């Protein structure tokens, strides 16, 4: 405390902005402006726990890289604008194009990162006042297949399962979900539940061996894209073994017979299903038996199911099994879509997808349109679905859509065939980008840039995977001229003369309007919907500020309560057996198995699977700022089976080019042992800001699911080839050489690079093709050292092509560069640790060029536990010292005791060392 008068720093409760788990956090900002974030013990999602990404949030709310004020690109250069001028430009630009080419010539591409209030205003503006449905979102890439599946089966996009249900289940089946890494806290809850109830079983269906499958009782390494065969097979098995709930089917569903016939036809025999899915028949049978005998079963799924050209069918194939057994609408049972983004659910609630209207009302239904237009008092209402994400950018490319406003997302990195997105934006007449970050691969194409408020500054609500609405609260002043997105949208509406319909001064007013719309016409005789926030109507600022995490529906006292049956909780969706289809029955959807769109051939013999890694999020605009998250996976990689590596001619740790017919990227080869034959995995996170050529989106087949429009991110035919370089290297520097991406002399010298933020330094991994030259001079140029008398250490072995240099300033390490013709460079761990030292120890200097301290034992190895920064070597030593379980390791080193997401790795290390001990 600086002086007695400073106020005690106060904890502000908010919601984590990463995955769809939606954990509560407490944020505290010190007088010095340093924010720390801890788990909120009161929040019903996480009860105080946080994963490593959440725990590192404080490191991401920094001014670095932020977009501070509106700007316009004039002759290639950005010029600062005032907000009014910028909004005039946006309003006039869109108006001009709408007037000239009609409302469908403009589009919005928004994001599951938006708050519900932002989403609501964007959706209202576009569908009610522009009169187009050309507003789509990056949620299209994430869970639109789940939405479509829900709508087909239930008539409304309803996730019928809660986290509590997950803990009540006897069997949890995780399909296409690396929950341990992507939803760590949810996974921890699951594991804890299994600890309490050893009878509970966990089955993981995933082509890859993952941190999640490591913890499973049964792992089905299914062939990519064959989920429908698998679930049709299960349905047929259940039928054959009399596990069907005929009474439920008759009372509450339709379409069973036709669906059953197709399942029997396509997957009536487990042996052929096992062959189609490349599974051990014994393992498949065991799974079916487990499912058959578990009354309380939850099938939870995420991107492995959704991101497919038959994603919607996969979802329905899963739901069919639950409907057939009546295992839905009951505690501990049901199909469970786990969403990837913090507010994908909120976006769905307000209708922020191009084929939705608002508040779970349908665009295709005239009565619904009338209802919404009436509520909004809007001059028009979109009457046909707009363009879905992939189509939207195709339409821009084709010159049909001429203006786009992109909010809080980075499509140049994240969309399939991403180079096409680049080309499309390059020729688009007007590109407006609202973002928190100044330099992204997408802002590079903006004509107008609008600074958005970031997490910690903005104020509103998000909804997590279990329909729980939580507040994101501001605890920091907005940086620069950053404003809420809803404000910018409303200002444009005012400029178009709709000020009366966009009168908002604060987020709670928007939330109230949204809540009222969910209740509007929500009656059996008009437009019955499960989504109902009637009980939250009328919240004033104070009430909104105090809003505790709340699962919907939230009925007003005057609304008829949803009747509960069988003692189920009132929030148990479908507990009354009533669904939201026209006949109020759940629908079985026949699902004929379809192979993925891309066929393997001699040129492209491998299947590309994409996904997340544990410590990064989306395109790293946020996690890329957090040193704590930098080292778990420091580089983009391609993981493949050793046999496929051999056939492709690539070696572990070397670089490889992965190519599809759409594009290619260059990444590090990893042979983790987690991949099946013919499959490769590349993470989605590395953008042009963090790597020279690692945007995997470029490769992804832009084929989409015909119902949901969700692209097939998990199945693109590719080939892998060596990327030959003359040298490998890395640099650590206090200077942020990568800030201007390719423009830095460091990365310009390299044919390939990636960079990542460390604690007080930027780490760049480099590789180059020009072997010759005086490395000493080259290194100085690369690191920007001009003073010939700089404190500069170097080591060289010119014939071997080995070079190392370290630049010290005032006795502290300032930068270093290590070069070798092979990727056999020393560990970065110790050198990195020196950046945190106020002064080098005398012994350190001698180790600098070695890359490790001369005295042994200080290098902890690669970080395994990011929460406590425990390295692999430290853990190995403890295992050798007798620790035989992750719990014992945790007791000794603390590793794995916070977020727990490294526990599978700890188990792996224990097993590995034990195996090594028994073989030597």
């Amino acid at each position, binding site marked *: 405390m600086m002086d007695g008068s400073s106020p005690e720093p106060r904890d502000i409760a908010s919601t984590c902005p990463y995955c769809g788990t939606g954990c509560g956090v407490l944020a505290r900002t010190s007088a010095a402006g340093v924010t720390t974030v801890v788990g909120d013990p009161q929040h019903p999602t996480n009860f105080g726990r946080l994963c490593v990404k959440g725990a590192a949030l404080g490191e991401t709310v920094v001014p670095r890289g932020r977009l501070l004020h509106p700007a316009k690109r004039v002759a290639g250069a950005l010029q600062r604008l005032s907000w009014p001028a910028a909004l005039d430009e946006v309003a006039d630009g869109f108006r001009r194009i709408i007037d000239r080419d009609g409302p469908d010539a403009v589009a919005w591409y928004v994001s599951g990162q938006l708050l519900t209030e932002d989403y609501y205003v964007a959706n209202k503006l576009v569908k009610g006042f522009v009169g187009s449905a050309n507003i789509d979102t990056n949620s299209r890439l994430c869970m639109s297949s789940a939405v479509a599946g829900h709508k087909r089966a239930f008539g409304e996009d309803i996730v019928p399962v809660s986290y509590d249900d997950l803990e009540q289940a006897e069997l949890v089946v995780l399909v296409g979900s690396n929950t341990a890494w992507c939803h760590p806290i949810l996974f921890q809850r699951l594991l804890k539940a299994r600890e309490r109830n050893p009878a509970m079983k966990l089955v993981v269906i995933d082509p890859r061996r993952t941190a999640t499958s490591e913890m499973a009782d049964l792992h089905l390494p299914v062939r990519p894209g064959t989920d429908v065969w698998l679930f049709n097979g299960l349905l047929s098995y259940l039928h054959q073994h009399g596990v069907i709930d005929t009474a439920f089917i008759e009372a509450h569903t339709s379409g069973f017979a036709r669906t059953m016939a197709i399942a029997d036809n396509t997957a009536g025999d487990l042996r052929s299903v096992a062959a189609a899915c490349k599974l051990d028949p014994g393992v498949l049978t065991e799974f079916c038996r487990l499912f058959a005998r578990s009354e309380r079963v939850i099938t939870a799924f995420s991107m492995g199911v959704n991101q497919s050209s038959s994603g919607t069918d996969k979802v329905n194939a899963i739901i069919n099994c639950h409907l057939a057994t009546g295992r839905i609408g009951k505690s501990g049972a049901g199909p469970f879509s786990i969403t990837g983004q913090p507010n994908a659910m909120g976006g769905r609630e307000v209708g922020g997808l191009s084929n939705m209207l608002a508040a779970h009302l349908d665009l295709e239904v005239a009565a619904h349109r009338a209802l919404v237009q009436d509520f909004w008092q809007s001059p028009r209402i979109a009457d046909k679905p707009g363009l879905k994400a992939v189509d939207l950018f195709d339409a821009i490319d084709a010159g049909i859509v001429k203006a786009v406003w992109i909010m809080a997302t980075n499509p140049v990195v994240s969309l399939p065939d991403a180079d096409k997105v680049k080309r499309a934006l390059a020729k688009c007449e007007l590109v407006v980008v609202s973002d928190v970050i100044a330099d992204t691969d997408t802002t590079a194409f903006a004509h107008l840039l609008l600074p958005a408020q970031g997490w910690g500054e903005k104020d509103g609500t998000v909804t997590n995977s279990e329909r729980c609405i939580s507040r994101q609260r501001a605890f920091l002043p907005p940086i620069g001229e950053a404003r809420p997105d809803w404000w910018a949208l409303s200002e444009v509406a005012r400029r178009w003369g709709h000020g009366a319909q966009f009168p908002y001064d604060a987020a709670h007013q928007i939330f109230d309007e949204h809540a009222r719309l969910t209740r509007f016409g929500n009656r059996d005789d008009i437009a019955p919907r499960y989504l109902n926030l009637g009980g939250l109507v009328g919240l004033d600022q104070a009430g909104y500020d105090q809003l505790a995490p709340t699962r919907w529906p939230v009925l007003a006292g005057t609304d008829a309560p949803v009747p509960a049956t069988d003692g189920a909780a009132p929030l148990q969706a479908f507990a009354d057996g009533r669904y939201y289809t026209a006949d109020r029955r759940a629908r079985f959807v026949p699902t004929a198995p379809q192979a993925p769109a891309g066929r393997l051939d001699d040129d492209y013999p491998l299947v590309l699977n994409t996904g997340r890694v544990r410590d990064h999020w989306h395109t790293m605009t946020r996690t890329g700022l957090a040193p704590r998250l930098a080292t778990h996976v420091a580089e983009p990689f391609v993981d493949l089976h050793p046999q496929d590596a051999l056939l492709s001619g690539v070696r572990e740790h070397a670089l490889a080019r992965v190519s599809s017919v759409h594009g290619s990227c260059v990444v590090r080869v990893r042979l983790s042992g987690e991949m099946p034959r013919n499959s490769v995995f590349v993470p989605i996170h590395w953008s042009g800001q963090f790597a020279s050529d690692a945007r995997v989106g470029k490769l992804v087949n832009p084929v989409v699911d015909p119902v949901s429009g969700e692209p097939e991110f998990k199945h693109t035919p590719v080939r892998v080839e060596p990327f030959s370089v003359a040298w490998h290297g890395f640099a650590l520097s206090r200077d942020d050489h990568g800030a201007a991406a390719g423009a830095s002399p460091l990365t310009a010298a390299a044919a390939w690079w990636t960079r990542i933020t460390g604690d007080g330094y930027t780490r760049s991994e480099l590789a180059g093709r020009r072997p010759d030259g005086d490395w000493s001079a080259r290194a100085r140029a690369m690191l920007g050292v001009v003073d010939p008398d700089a404190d*500069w*250490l170097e080591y*060289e*072995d010119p014939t071997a092509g*080995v070079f190392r240099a370290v630049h010290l300033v005032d006795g502290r390490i300032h930068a270093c560069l290590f070069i070798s013709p092979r990727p056999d460079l020393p560990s970065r761990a110790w050198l990195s640790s020196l950046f945190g030292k106020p002064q080098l120890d005398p012994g350190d200097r001698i180790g600098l060029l070695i890359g490790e301290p001369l005295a*042994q034992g200080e290098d902890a190895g690669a970080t395994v536990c990011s929460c406590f920064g425990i390295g692999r070597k430290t853990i190995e030593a403890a295992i050798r010292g007798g620790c035989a379980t992750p719990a014992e390791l945790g007791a000794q080193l603390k590793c794995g005791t916070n977020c727990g997401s490294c526990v599978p790795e700890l188990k792996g290390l224990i097993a590995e060392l034990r195996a090594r001990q028994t073989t030597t």
Partner: protein
Amino acid sequence: MKPRLVVIGNGMSAIRTVEELLKLDGERYQITVFGAEPHGNYNRILLSPVLAGEKHFEDIVTHDRAWYARHGILLYAGNPVIGIDRARRVVTALDGLEVAYDRLLIATGSRPFIIPVPGHQLPGVIAFRDIHDVETMLEAARNHRHAVVIGGGLLGLEAANGLLRQGMTVSVVHVMDSLMERQLDKPAARLLKAALEKRGMRFLLEANTAEIVGDHRVTAVRFKDGSEVAADLVVMAVGIRPNIDLAKAAGLHVERAIVVDDTLQTATDPRIYAVGECVQHRKNVYGLVAPLWDQARVCAAHLAGLGHRRYRGSVTATRLKVTGIDLYSAGDFIGGPDSEDLVLRDPGRGVYKRLVLKGNLIIGVVMYGDVADGPWYFELMQTRRDIGSLRQRLLFGRAYCESQAA
């Protein structure tokens, strides 16, 4: 009566050979030693510390007259041999004494090279070879101010450092552009020059001495470009020449020095052996101490009649004996088109290391600032150890290499 061994020369290699011989067979010969200097034997290498005032002459004497007496050796110090009559097997000393021999050991060493420029015989112009030169320099330091050392090699720098320590202003004149070019590569030489300049030494590089100026005593050194530098004392340290006049006169085969075989026997006369700086072995002439020790051991074995040792030449290592400056070099540190370098530079810590490799062998080493591992590299070089597997770690030192191997 015992056979007679006559030793011409009373320097380090002569007496080391005698010592080795006594170890093998103390009774074999009647030994007579002739020396030019009027002392017992002293360690010439330590003249620099004497000049620098860090040691006294008594400290560097290795064999006093009592030692000779104790071993029954007849010493004629200050009475050099001036002729060898191989037919009669007799040597003749300056004072006319004649002594017959059965075996003769020539260890006349070398003498400093004095550039024959005008004025080189003026008083105040000396070499740096023996204790007498040191005494002259110490005397000059007491009475004069300006010293010029001609020669920026090992000896010249040691002399210059000593004179500096004795309070003189010292300029080192060197014909090359880099100091100690026979022991150091240019980066190391730059570090050395900077360190010596910091101590107050001045350098005139690429300077060709034209004349030494003075009437009764030296007053200046003049260069070919006409410039001059004041000098009350000029130390010539531009190199040494093997002392071979005697051998030549005796009709022994002499090229650059007295040619010997692997047993240190002269090529011409099987009764005559030679060791030290005056010999040429397999085309090499050595000016450093380590080869002398090897030669002495071999030669002594043959003199003792135990013909089992062979001298195959030496790889040499140098340390500069200037207190506070650590410098080590050995072998072929210049290298050639087929050699490879490992280099480490840390000027901030005053450290420079360079290893020259050929194939997987170390053939040369230069170290400055941190020379602790010099002997280890030297050992790897001498034992021709294959360093292929160590290469990536080698230059980071023995402790690191061994910790990694463990």
